[in-house]
Structure formats: structure tokens, C-alpha cells
């Protein structure tokens, strides 16, 4: 999926945030974690939200589960259709956080 953002270097993985969450990440739209080898989505989220606990709580609850209406995409596939939080992500890849359609 092309987000129009610069691709991360091959030694890093980017997490692209929706605009509504960017204030909780110091205004950043992309958070980047250094990675020389494949990591899990869980490790990636732990790493990029480590400095932003309020952001972390928006994505996952206290048990570590991804919130029901938060979708996380790796290579264009939502992680619930992959291996969930243990889905591997390779250096140079980009992970998208997108809110699903919910509410009324």
C-alpha cells in the first residue's frame, strides 16, 4: 500500500498513524523503530509507543489485545487475518494503523 510517505530505510520499520492519534505521538504521523531483522507486530507496537503510553492505550487494552475497532495492516493485510500480534514485520516495511468503521 502506498501511503505517499517516504519509505522507511531497510534498517527500520515505520508505523503510520491516523491523524486523530497523532497528537498522542507528539504530533508525528509516523513512528519508526530500528530493526535489523524481522520483528513481531507486538514488539513493534511496544517499541514505538514506549514513550507514548496514552497512544499505546488507544491501540491495545491492558491485556495487550488490539482494540476491537483498531485495524493494523501489514503489507495491506489486517493482522487478524495474519498471525495477529505475532505477525512478522520485516525491516523496510510499513505498518498502518486505521480505525475501522464503527459506531452510529
Amino acid at each position: 500500500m502506498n501511503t505517499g510517505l517516504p519509505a522507511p530505510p531497510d534498517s527500520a520499520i515505520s508505523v503510520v498513524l491516523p491523524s486523530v492519534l497523532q497528537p498522542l505521538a507528539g504530533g508525528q504521523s509516523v513512528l519508526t523503530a530500528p530493526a535489523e531483522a524481522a520483528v513481531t507486530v507486538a514488539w513493534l507496537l511496544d517499541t514505538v509507543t514506549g514513550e507514548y503510553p496514552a497512544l499505546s492505550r488507544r491501540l491495545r487494552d491492558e491485556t495487550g489485545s488490539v482494540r476491537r475497532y483498531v485495524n493494523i495492516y501489514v503489507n495491506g493485510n489486517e493482522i487478524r487475518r495474519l498471525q495477529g500480534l505475532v505477525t512478522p514485520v520485516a525491516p523496510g516495511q510499513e505498518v498502518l494503523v486505521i480505525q475501522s468503521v464503527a459506531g452510529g
Partner: protein
Amino acid sequence: MGGMATADSYVLAIGTKKGLWLATSPDRKDWSLSGPHFLMSEVPSIGIDTRDGRTRILVGVRSEHWGPTVFHSDDLGETWNEPENGAITFPDGTDAALERVWQIYPDADSRPGVVWAGCEPISVWKSTDGGEHFELNTGLWDHPHRSEWGAGYGGAAAHSIVVDPTGEKVHVAMSTGGVYRSLDGGASWEPRNKGISARFMPDPFPEFGQCVHKIAADAAVDGRLYAQNHHGVYRSDDDAESWESIAEGLPADFGFVMLTHPRRAGTAWVIPLKADGERIPPDGKLAVHRTDDAGASWKRLDAGLANPEYNAVLRDAACVDEAEPAGVYFGTRGGSVYASADEGENFTEVASHLPDVLCVRAAAVTAALLPAQSKG
């Protein structure tokens, strides 16, 4: 919280399904509305803490996407703060996650900084720092009955917390589970539902499992409590050891609201709905009912209310203030909000066509605290 208000203005916080509105008034009749705050997030709980020489508004906020949290404002909504690590989060080992904050209850003046919270899943929490960080009440969380508590239509939650002046007697009401009482400040808990029916269960008078909708304490009679149940309106004169019906004289014994006077013995308000299967004001005629004799008789109060009105009033969508005479406030699921400056005798409409009103709380404040746009 505290004695009679001497302030010169009033604030009414209105939590809805899609955000928070704040209304201010110099006289509880003419109101200026501002908002929304937290647009598209529901606000099911509000606490206005006027202790410690400040007015802190605490709100339970829940986004369908991003989950629940607690914000507070010390400048009447000009700015909002969310504690970095979250005010209410289940500790490791509980394998639980906060779903919704149903109740925020600032404790007595004599215990400044103490704020209680009732949450979904069924749990009670206590803060000693003005609501910035809460600790889970493990006595209730580890109670052997917990696995048998159920969920009402709106979810499984502790929604009412009543603490006596000593701080030792604490009553909690949960749906469904009933009333639980602690005599040791919250360390241990026992069910106290004798006399309260649970017509939806095989045993209509079980030890626990009742669907109590709201409880409130009489301000001036030690040991006296009132309860609005899922069918049934009750009073206890012995700290919930036993309950007796006070529904006679009401048009219906179903409803969600139970309010008590901030100072006067025997005065309480309910807002009856027809039945669990017909959750509308009886015959579409919305009315508040007040007793001044602890439930022996009820007075119908509907001056200024819409007629017809087919929307329900939820358990925390009603409150009183601490002024003299006491103000009474409520909002409907149709987004109308009403205020009375005379204990319910006359109502004025504060707002209309808001999203479903989930919670209202009112307090007297000094006008100097009001945001600039609200003065005048």
C-alpha cells in the same frame, strides 16, 4: 460534598453518547451552552469535585475505537488532562481490561483528594489524588460472587457508590449483582438485598443477583438508603440490612434514577418509566416524582417538561446540586436537558436535540472560574 453552596454561578456538565457539553448559569434558569468536548466519544460518567478550593471536572470518556479513559479539567473545560499512564487501568494479573467508567464519585469534604469510581467490568476503584490515579478495590474484585454477577442490558458495571461520613460504611450497587456493603472502608464486602425482588430470576428474592439501577443515601438520616430497581423502589433504614417497598403512589415502579436531597431528611426523587418492556415515561407523560417523607407519599412534578415525551432517562442522567433550594437536573435519551432551581417544582429546558444524555452533574462555582465566553 460539603455544605450549602454560596457561589454565584452554576455549571452543569452533560455527558452524551457523542460528547460532553457544559452549561453555565447565574441563576439556574438562563443557561449558556458550550461544546461539544470529546466529540464522537461517549461520556457516561462525570464527577465535579469542588473540594480543595478548586473545581475539577472528571469525565469518563469512551471511544468506540480507542477505548475508555478518564480526563480531568481544572479550568471548567478550557483544557483537559489525561494522566500519562491512565487514571484507571486494570493491574497485571487480573487479565481484565477497562470497558467503561460508569461512576465518578468525589468523597466527603473531610477526605479531600479521595474519589471513587465504579466501572465495567464490575469493579470499584479509589483515588487519593483527586482522580488522577485509581487503585482497584481488590476486596470486591476478588469476591467469590464475582463469577455469578451478570450484565444488564447496558453492560455489567458497578454504577453506584455511597460512602458514609465516617468513610467506613460503603455501599456499592451493581447491575446485575445487587447491593453490596462494606463496613471496613471497602476491604470486605457482603451482599445486602433482603427484601429486594429479582423477578427475572427463578428465586425472586435471592441473596444477590438483583438488578438494582441506582442507590442513594439520605443526607440526614444515618443508615437510610433508597434504591430504584429493575422494577421496585425501596428504602432501607438499617444500612441495607433490609429493604421495604416505597413504590406505592408512583405511576410505575420501573426506572433508573434515584436522587436524594443534599441536606434534608426524607427527600428523594425518581423518574418512573412504564416497565422493563416499555421503557418510556408512563403514557408518554414525563414527570419527576418527589417524596418528602421518605417514600410514604410522592408528588408528581412536570411543570416545564415536554409533553408528550417518549424518551427514557438513564441512571446517571439526573443529579442534584447543593444549593438552597436544591437544584434538580436531568437529561433524556432524546437529548433534552432540564434544570429546576426549586427542587423540581418548575423545570426549564437547558438544551434540546443533543445526543442521548448519559450523565449530568451540576455544581455551584464562583463566576471568576468560568471561561471568558461564559461570563456575562
